[in-house]
């Protein structure tokens, strides 16, 4: 098991442009599953390639268990990368593909054969030795690529978008397989993804990157409950933002003053954030304001309302039963549970005060 530390890691592809990866400091725990998450172009794959030794850092250091490996050739690092498009060698059989790393190390043919069989069992594809990559489905190719990496018993396993090329139903299967194997073998694993759900479900810890910079490195639920900035909250999506000023556990906004004990900033310019499912319609009581229902959709498992509070539109998700009680144009009481409000620092780009919900789902890339 290996602990991986990135220290001031920087990559510039040419002198003039912005760095693709900018002074990254991350400590990846030994034996854990860590996600590098971010929209396309955020530098996550570049980071992974630097760990694998396939790209040379411009600056900074990568340490495995405390010692720098930047000068070490990729084949000697013990960090194996599985590419997004699997890249099984097309002219080799499945067995030759899986056994490749061992062959390079001069392992005997008979031992390679046994270990290949073990690996095929591990990825639940026994008997596939003589198939050709072309004859396999995407999910099967992914398993073989995984087996090919695992057979060399890497210290660090690097997975580039391991689920993105798979159909939805295969994705769950592969997620379970990766998570199962990782738990069983306890290999320090880093995977790259642009899909926050994937990161949340699979990872022990998530490093969120925007434009080559680390935004937040935390356990998955923290990104939903206590995101560090508006941008982070937007990336995880589906949240209402209402700008205001905060002071002493209260926030004053254009639509009223709310009690909000959980904050990332103590006082001054701030943004109230609350998830649509945490907003209560009807009821009343403390921390509530009057609003008017603008539109609604019935989704089945839940209902989604758009509610105008003064000039501010917010999104509310309720149980589907509310649809029968409320219609468009109705006036309604809107309550923000103080325990579910999270106060953030002001948006970095200084955007205007309009509430901005369901904004942040980034396109796949």
């Amino acid at each position, binding site marked *: 098991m290996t602990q991986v530390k990135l220290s001031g890691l920087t990559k510039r592809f040419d002198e003039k442009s912005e760095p693709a990866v900018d002074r990254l400091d991350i400590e990846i725990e030994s034996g854990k599953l860590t996600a590098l998450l971010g929209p396309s172009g955020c530098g996550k794959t570049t980071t992974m*390639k630097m760990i694998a030794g396939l790209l*040379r850092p411009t600056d900074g250091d990568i340490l495995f268990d405390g010692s720098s490996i930047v000068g070490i050739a*990729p084949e000697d690092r013990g960090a194996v990368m599985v590419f997004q498009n699997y890249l099984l060698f097309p002219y080799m059989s499945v067995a030759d593909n899986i056994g490749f790393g061992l062959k390079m190390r001069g392992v005997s043919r008979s031992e390679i054969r046994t270990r290949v069989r073990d690996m095929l069992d591990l990825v639940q594809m026994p008997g596939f030795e003589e198939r050709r990559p072309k004859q396999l489905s995407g999910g099967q190719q992914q398993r073989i690529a995984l087996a090919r990496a695992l057979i060399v018993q890497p210290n660090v396993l690097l997975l580039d978008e391991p689920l993105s090329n798979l159909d939805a139903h295969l994705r769950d299967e592969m997620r379970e397989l990766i998570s199962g194997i990782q738990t069983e073998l306890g290999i320090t694993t880093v995977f790259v993804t642009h899909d926050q759900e994937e990161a949340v479900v699979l990872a022990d810890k998530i490093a969120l990157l925007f434009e080559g910079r680390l935004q937040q490195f935390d356990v998955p639920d923290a990104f939903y409950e206590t995101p560090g900035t508006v941008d982070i909250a937007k990336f995880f999506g589906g949240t209402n933002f209402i700008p205001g000023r905060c002071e002493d556990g209260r926030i004053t906004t254009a639509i009223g003053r709310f009690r909000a004990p959980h904050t990332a900033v103590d006082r001054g310019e701030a943004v109230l954030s609350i998830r649509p499912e945490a907003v209560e319609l009807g009821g009343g009581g403390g921390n509530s304001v009057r609003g008017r229902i603008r539109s609604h959709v019935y989704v089945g498992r839940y209902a989604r309302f758009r509610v105008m509070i003064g000039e501010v539109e917010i999104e509310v998700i309720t149980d589907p039963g509310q649809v029968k009680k409320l219609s468009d144009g109705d006036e309604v009481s809107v309550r923000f549970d103080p325990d579910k409000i999270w106060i953030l620092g002001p948006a970095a780009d200084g955007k205007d005060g309009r509430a901005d919900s369901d904004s942040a789902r980034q396109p796949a890339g």
Partner: protein
Amino acid sequence: MAGAAAKTTLVHRPAWRVTGRWVGITGLLAFLIAPIVPLFIWSISFRWFYPAILPTEYSARAWTEVINPNNDVVGVAWNTALIALVVTAFSILLGVPAGRALGLYEFRGKRLVEWLILAPIIVPGLAVVLGIHVLFIRAGLSNSLPGVILVHLVPTLPYMTLVMSGVFANYDTDFELQARSLGAGRLATQWYVTLPAIFPGVVVGAMFAFIISWSQYVLTLLIGGGQVQTLPLLLFSFVRSDPAIAGALSVVFILPAVLVLLLSSRYLSGDSAAVGGIGNI
């Protein structure tokens, strides 16, 4: 993402490896350019006796003789170009439809047809030109311009056909159907839809057909029987007797090749040029 877009380059590039690459590239360039260098020097030399590394006297004699309209050279160059142009025109006229059939349709005997078309590209001209000569003598085509043009079609036509078959393999005929359904007639469809789509391929194929004909030696020598003069024959006759003229002729002889390459780079995104079998030129 940035990582995927950026090319993966492996870590560890010691200085000797970088230097080694440059030594390699320089060596390659030197080797490629080397045979052309003495041709240029000879073309402007007046006295260049062994062991002088460069001519002791220079002159424009060879060039003035080559471009002098009273000499044969200009006429022969035109003759060569004329043959190549006619050959190219026939290659386009016949090769484009055939390429369409091969590129768009699957049919019985297709492999046989492909084999038939590939054969003249691979079988050297000399192996068939002796037999063709016998046929042409009987048909009265030997020692004549039409005979030379016909025999030049043997290497150019298959080449054009193969290039066009590649072009049509990536062509979607639904565009034509769409045009027809929008009211375009047969000819209008060919003109406004098909032609623009295949045009780059036709240009590239035509340029190389031109070069193949332009460079032809043994076919012209035998079928032309000395009655049809072209630049390669003329060049050959000066190689031993007058290196200065031969050098100047070589430079003239290269010109279309350079032009074609400059032009075709507009239509080719670089590296697919040779895949059709240009090495036979």
